[in-house]
């Protein structure tokens, strides 16, 4: 089966939405996308819940509703990246082919650009923009910098936020975009990207940095007993060469610290701004919803604006009200009656499937209820699990339609 054929097949299956969303208010996605003051939408949540797809679908829907959108994705599936024309990783937004602007709502003027984050290049560009050419070259060649910029566990988070800041500035300066949709990295914890800028800034500003810089800056001031102990211990543990590399790196970086700290601070403020909205993405699983709850609380703490919760991959409820227990009792009766005809076998199988499905839907509903009970004011959209992965614009439109039809 070709992908096109498959996705065409899956359309009629989407039909009715997953069972009533319970007590929580429904998320009005279109109102969010149509609000001109809405400049940034951040999609966050645990790994594997469909953040990237949700971000891309929102971007496409917004563009086709007349917004000038740029989508920043972190790690899209290969085929989705191909469909969006962003598989070439060049760290600049490119127009997405095949977007039909103006035809759906009669609001022309929309556009969709997309890009995939290249964290090392983003870091390099920050260095290049902040330092003189010679100094930049010196930093870029330092082994410690190479390691930090390509593998430090928080670099991706930090650079995603850095890129968001850059896109926002570009948007304000050139007017090329009026809405930025951001996907967040698949962190160990969904909160990492919030903390990464602070953490890096804190480190660059911290005592350890001053300690490493001390020899270059006149040792007398910091030559305390503690200092000697620490450098000796470090030399024993990591070796003199690593320590030297680090010192060179830090010395070269010294003049940039101020710049980095301010940038981190600006990004954080941007995330708190009125035009920003967070969408927490989850799946109807305990882990993903627990992470979502944690995130919702954290956003509140940081006074960051939460737009709502998107629950992906929900099981479709069966029609009718045949309970799992009655269905299984029916299976027992068929067996007791000694029915072994193909029709009876088929019916028994269908009843078992039905029972299974009812139980899964009940469990998911319970999980969502318990989230809604502890977070009653969080507007929620519930999306059914699709039969196939999304890897073309039609698939994204389908998701967008589902997101837009919650109210």
């Amino acid at each position, binding site marked *: 089966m070709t992908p096109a054929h498959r996705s065409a097949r899956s359309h009629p299956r989407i039909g009715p939405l997953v069972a009533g969303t319970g007590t929580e208010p429904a998320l009005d996605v279109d109102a969010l996308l149509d609000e001109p003051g809405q400049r940034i939408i951040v999609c966050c949540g645990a790994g594997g819940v469909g953040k990237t797809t949700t971000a891309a679908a929102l971007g496409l829907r917004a563009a086709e509703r007349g917004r000038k959108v740029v989508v920043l994705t972190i790690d899209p599936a290969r085929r989705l990246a191909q469909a969006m024309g962003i598989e070439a990783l060049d760290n600049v937004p490119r127009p997405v082919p095949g977007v039909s602007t103006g035809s759906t709502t009669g609001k022309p003027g929309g556009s969709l650009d997309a890009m995939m984050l290249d964290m090392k290049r983003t870091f390099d560009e920050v260095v290049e923009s902040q330092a003189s050419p010679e100094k930049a070259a010196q930093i870029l060649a330092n082994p410690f910098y190479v390691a930090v910029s390509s593998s430090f566990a928080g670099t991706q988070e930090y650079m995603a936020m850095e890129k968001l800041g850059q896109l926002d500035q570009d948007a304000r300066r050139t007017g090329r975009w009026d809405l930025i949709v951001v996907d967040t990295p698949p962190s160990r*914890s969904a909160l990492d990207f919030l903390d990464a800028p602070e953490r890096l800034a804190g480190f660059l500003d911290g005592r350890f940095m001053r300690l490493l810089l001390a020899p270059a800056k006149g040792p007398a001031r910091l030559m305390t007993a503690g200092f000697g102990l620490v450098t000796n211990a470090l030399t024993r543990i990591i070796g003199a060469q690593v320590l030297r590399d680090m010192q060179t790196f830090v010395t070269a970086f010294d003049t940039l610290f101020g710049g980095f700290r301010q940038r981190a601070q600006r990004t954080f403020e941007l995330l708190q701004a009125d035009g920003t909205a967070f969408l927490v993405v989850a799946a109807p699983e305990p882990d993903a919803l627990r992470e979502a709850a944690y995130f919702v609380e954290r956003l509140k703490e940081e006074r960051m604006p939460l737009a709502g919760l998107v629950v992906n991959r929900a099981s479709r409820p069966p029609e009718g009200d045949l309970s799992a227990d009655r269905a299984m009792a029916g299976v027992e009766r068929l067996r007791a009656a000694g029915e072994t005809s193909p029709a009876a076998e088929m019916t028994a199988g269908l009843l078992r499937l039905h029972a299974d499905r009812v139980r899964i839907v009940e469990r998911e509903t319970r999980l969502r209820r318990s989230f809604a009970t502890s977070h009653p004011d969080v507007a929620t959209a519930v999306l059914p699990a699709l039969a196939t992965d999304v890897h073309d614009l039609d698939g994204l439109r389908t998701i967008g339609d589902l997101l837009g039809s919650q109210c």
Partner: protein
Amino acid sequence: MPPAPTSDWPAVQLHIVTGKGGTGKSTVAAALALALASRGKTVLLCEVEARQGIAQLFDVAPLPYEERRIAHGSGPAGGDVYALPIDPESAMMEYLAMYYRLGRAGKALDRFGVIEFATTIAPGVRDVLLTGKLYETANRNSRNKGARQYDAVVLDAPPTGRITQFLNVSDELAGLAKMGPIKSQSDTVTTLLRSRRTAVHLVTVLEEMPVQETADGVQQLHDAGLPVGGIVVNQVRPQDLDKSARTALLRRKVDPAGVAAALGVARVDDGATLVDSLLEEGHDHAQRRALEDEQRKLVAGIGAPTYELPKLAAGVDLTGLYELAAQLCEQGLA
């Protein structure tokens, strides 16, 4: 089905379980630990992502940085399962205490932010610390007096996308530390991770993206010289309907009258709408099974032994974990 007479992985002491987010790798790691314990082994189950996933799965209070007994393998000969959440800060302090009698310097390191630096900023060091502690649990030495010996260590590891980098500690450090104690420490760990005592198992579900990521992950592990174990296909749909029944449902060739009659016998006679909706559900199921079968072929093509675990309708609680563990014994992963 009784347990397989022996495990497919008799020489493996260190089981590393990875998987794409959302595929249930933590569940599989926990079930594997229980399965190994039910074979009489003393097992340590570790996690490294500071999520307290083990505590949640076994329904116990959050676990501290110490090896604590959390479960017992089923059966008369069942061994114990201990749990250890490894965090880099504790691992580093422990390491420093064990190998360097730093005394005052140790405290000074912390005060100057060196511990924080090493565990959050310094590239690769975090992973060296985590895998280093893992190594220590599998190779107890005289410095750790009175420590328990484990027959098997199971790690709930970082996700597939990061696993090779995580395990390839010496490569990660290569550009950074060409000599010195950190370098030799990571080399020792690498030797264990690349040996036959280790197996990296990958968890997937039968969907395109996770299967693709599993294939990529296996390739990356191979390229890095790391030992690929089994592929655990998780959350498999119920297998109630045979091929001919599914084909009939897909082609919408099932006679509604036959189903209606059988429903009469079953006394769930809710009329024609029930027949229609059951057939519709059956059609949907058959369609998804067909898609799963395509993915199953791709999984088989990866060339690693595969194991299948069902999707538990009620979710995974402790009972569910034992159920999955029994399946892993039957199929020989444990």
